[in-house]
């Protein structure tokens, strides 16, 4: 083994090698975190513009002016893409996974540090490219984050479908490569760099969730990469993978014989696992926090692991439920429907295990715990509408309505965001060495939770009443115009909720510099990151490799001197 002296000599001293092109997984994790933080504010700003335009179509806004219907389509495309790729994929996995996976398994760094650095900077390039799409001629693309052809495959199909759409696809392809590099690194690290005693069934559930997420990413992003390459060829080389014989603006284009459904198959083969890529790390963090703040072992550890594994496995077999409206055979739809509803089983196992963990616990209602409970709440609320959409007979009615928008925002959007918030409040002391403000945290939590329900619950009713998504205005159709008051309510709720996020930002940056100093283990938690210094040294454990003697969630062990047993405590610390 490397001696402590050689490892410390390895720590870079210059500013650029230390903070910009760092090989340290902790610095790279922070870079991912701040990239996602930037992205989430861009995405939120876009959604705010959309909400305002929907209710006051003629409003002339400062900075952006009047929003035209096609601008509205650009806004929803970029909102979806930025949120899904650069926030929900980047923050939980790239950010917290990068920072804490190696520490939680007792490794000094990722298995491939250079690859890790490359994957961050590739993600950064992808972000720059997609932001550039706003500023080119014609503006950002119109085709939504799913990019369905022919709209996305034909240059002349709309104002944003020129260079803007090319940049969009290029950014997605670059992001795929970055995610593949990251996923490869995560899996290898988990397989090969676990400290002595860290057997698979002693890994914290956070590590399991990042590990399974990485497997999903490894298998899903390669398919999207191919799909994106074919789409770029259709757009720029004149091939006809996705485009049939088509007339655009009165002109017959040169394409013939292609199938738009091919894109839908390839995209959703990636797209459905992507949903779990966003939500699984949140599940891991929630499990970790619920156990810590209930002062109880996680209820059904192994069931949690197998539930996550089966959610990952099922994730690859259900992509067809996004395509019930595409004219697929009713027999295929039936199979996809059954498999989709099967996902309810492991999801319910997880939910009841979370409740079982809290049951009769000595719960500490601190901000991370509030967000973890909020995650469970949103997961249930958003999840219950899943079985509706999983059935073709109902989905044909609800497809492309606000019901779908409400469903996926609750479960994949805001639930995952709550996971990110929980992780931020929980790990902030370890990352920055200071505590976040509790009062601000609680205010932020209650406004955000109430605001989230106020925004997304009414959308289910809008959808059932037949309000279609992706329409910029509702004044033209009589039955849709009647629903505008509810849309107005949602807009007010959105404005309040988005404003409340400033509390989080203030808390984050104020605490970073002025918060009270954090001890090494402020939450009295058990996993390896709390055994090392705050913030952790360059090699995580100061030249030693920890030896693990305990499972990850040994709280309230009978006969133990404290109400928690750290993973590195000697064997005699517990009575059994």
């Amino acid at each position: 083994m490397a001696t402590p002296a050689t490892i410390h000599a390895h720590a870079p001293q210059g500013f650029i090698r230390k903070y910009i092109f760092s090989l340290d997984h902790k610095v790279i994790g922070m870079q991912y975190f701040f990239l996602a933080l930037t992205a989430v504010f861009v995405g939120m700003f876009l959604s705010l513009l959309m909400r305002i335009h929907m209710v006051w179509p003629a409003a002339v806004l400062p900075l952006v002016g009047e929003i035209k219907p096609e601008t509205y389509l650009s806004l929803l495309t970029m909102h979806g893409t930025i949120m899904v790729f650069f926030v929900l994929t980047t923050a939980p996995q790239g950010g917290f996974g990068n920072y804490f996976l190696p520490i939680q398994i007792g490794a000094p760094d990722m298995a491939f540090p250079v690859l890790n650095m490359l994957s961050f900077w590739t993600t950064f390039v992808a972000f720059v490219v997609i932001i550039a799409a706003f500023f080119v001629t014609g503006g950002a693309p119109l085709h939504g984050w799913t990019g369905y052809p022919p709209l996305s495959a034909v240059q002349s199909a709309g104002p944003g479908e020129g260079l803007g759409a090319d940049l969009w696809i290029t950014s997605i392809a670059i992001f795929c490569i970055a995610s593949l590099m990251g996923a490869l690194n995560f899996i290898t690290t988990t397989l090969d760099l676990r400290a002595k005693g860290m057997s698979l069934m002693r890994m914290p559930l956070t590590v399991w969730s990042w590990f399974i997420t990485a497997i999903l990413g490894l298998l899903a992003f390669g398919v999207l990469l191919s799909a994106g390459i074919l789409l770029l060829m259709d757009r720029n080389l004149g091939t006809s993978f996705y485009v049939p014989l088509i007339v655009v603006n009165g002109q017959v284009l040169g394409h013939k014989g292609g199938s738009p459904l091919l894109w839908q198959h390839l995209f959703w083969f990636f797209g459905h696992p992507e949903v779990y890529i966003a939500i699984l790390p949140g599940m891991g963090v929630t499990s970790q926090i619920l156990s810590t703040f209930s002062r109880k072992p996680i209820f059904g550890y192994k069931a949690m692991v197998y539930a996550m594994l089966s959610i990952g496995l099922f994730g690859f077999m259900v992509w067809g439920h996004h395509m019930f409206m595409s004219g697929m055979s009713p027999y295929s739809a039936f199979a996809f429907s059954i498999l989709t509803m099967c996902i309810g089983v492991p999801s319910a196992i997880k939910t009841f295990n979370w409740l079982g963990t809290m049951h009769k616990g000595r719960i500490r209602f601190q901000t991370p715990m509030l967000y973890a409970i909020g995650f469970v709440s949103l997961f249930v609320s958003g999840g219950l509408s899943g079985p509706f959409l999983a059935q073709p007979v109902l989905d044909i009615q609800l497809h492309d309505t606000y019901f779908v928008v409400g469903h996926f925002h609750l479960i994949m959007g805001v639930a995952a965001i709550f996971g990110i918030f929980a992780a931020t409040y929980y790990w902030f002391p370890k990352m920055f060495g200071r505590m976040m403000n509790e009062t601000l945290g609680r205010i932020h939590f209650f406004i955000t939770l109430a605001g989230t329900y106020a925004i997304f619950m009414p959308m289910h009713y809008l959808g059932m009443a037949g309000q279609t998504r992706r329409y910029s205005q509702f004044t033209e159709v009589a039955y849709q115009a009647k629903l505008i008051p509810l849309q107005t309510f949602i807009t007010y709720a959105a404005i309040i909720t988005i404003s409340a996020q400033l509390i989080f930002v203030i808390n984050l940056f104020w605490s970073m510099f002025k918060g009270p100093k954090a001890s090494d283990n402020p939450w009295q938690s058990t996993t390896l990151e709390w055994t090392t210094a705050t913030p952790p040294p360059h090699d995580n454990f100061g030249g030693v490799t920890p030896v693990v003697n305990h499972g990850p969630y040994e709280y309230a062990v009978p006969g133990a001197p404290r109400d928690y047993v750290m993973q590195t405590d000697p064997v005699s610390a517990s009575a059994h």
Partner: protein
Amino acid sequence: MADATLQHDAAVGHGLAGAYEAPLFGAYSKKVGMWLFLASDSLTFGALLFAFSYNRISNPAWPTPFAVESITNATIMTACLLSSSLTMVLGVLAARRGDRAWTRNWLLGTMAFGTAFIVLHGLEWTHLIDKGMTPFANPWAPSVPQFGGTFFTLTGMHMLHVTIGVIYLGVIAFRKWFLPVLAAIWIAGYFLIPADNVFHYGIHALGIGLIVSAIILFLKPKVYDAHDVEVSGLYWHFVDLVWMFIFPLVYLMSTKI
């Protein structure tokens, strides 16, 4: 922390107990990394093969133009790749017993077979393009432009992988001494290939390969050991295996009867 990782790998490679749990599949990190890359790459190729099959099934007028010359040529290419797998195995075995000279020889043989494959395939492409086949048109079935599109996408992606493989093996076998050879082939190719040929521009892939290899060799100027040879062998065999799907699907199923 690369040092710790390397020492950990060395410990695992020699079966020593380190400060870590035994790796789950008993493999050192680089090997696991390569296997994982190949898993994701097989999904990337899988998506392209799916696109091919989907288009083929949905277009009943799919042409079957490959006459005996094309099939013979593709069979020779297949033979080249299969032979290269044999030489690769021999190279890995030589590296494992520490025989540097023969490792280099067998890798050189593998590269020669790989290069022969690329050249033959390049001639085939040129021939087909001369006949009027492009990614968006073909002379045999004008209503099925997907024939050219899928052909050039699949074989192009594969050819890119073989090219990367040859450069990869060259760097493993000859390290920095491979760079001038690569540069010479790149520049010679650019001037020798006529300007109206697609490979006049395609040859710049070698230039990109040259830059990337130079950066890697500059950052990590090490002597590659038996593990590196084995890992490069994994990649090479995978590229062979992909061809074993492309050859029957693209060529044999479109034979002129």
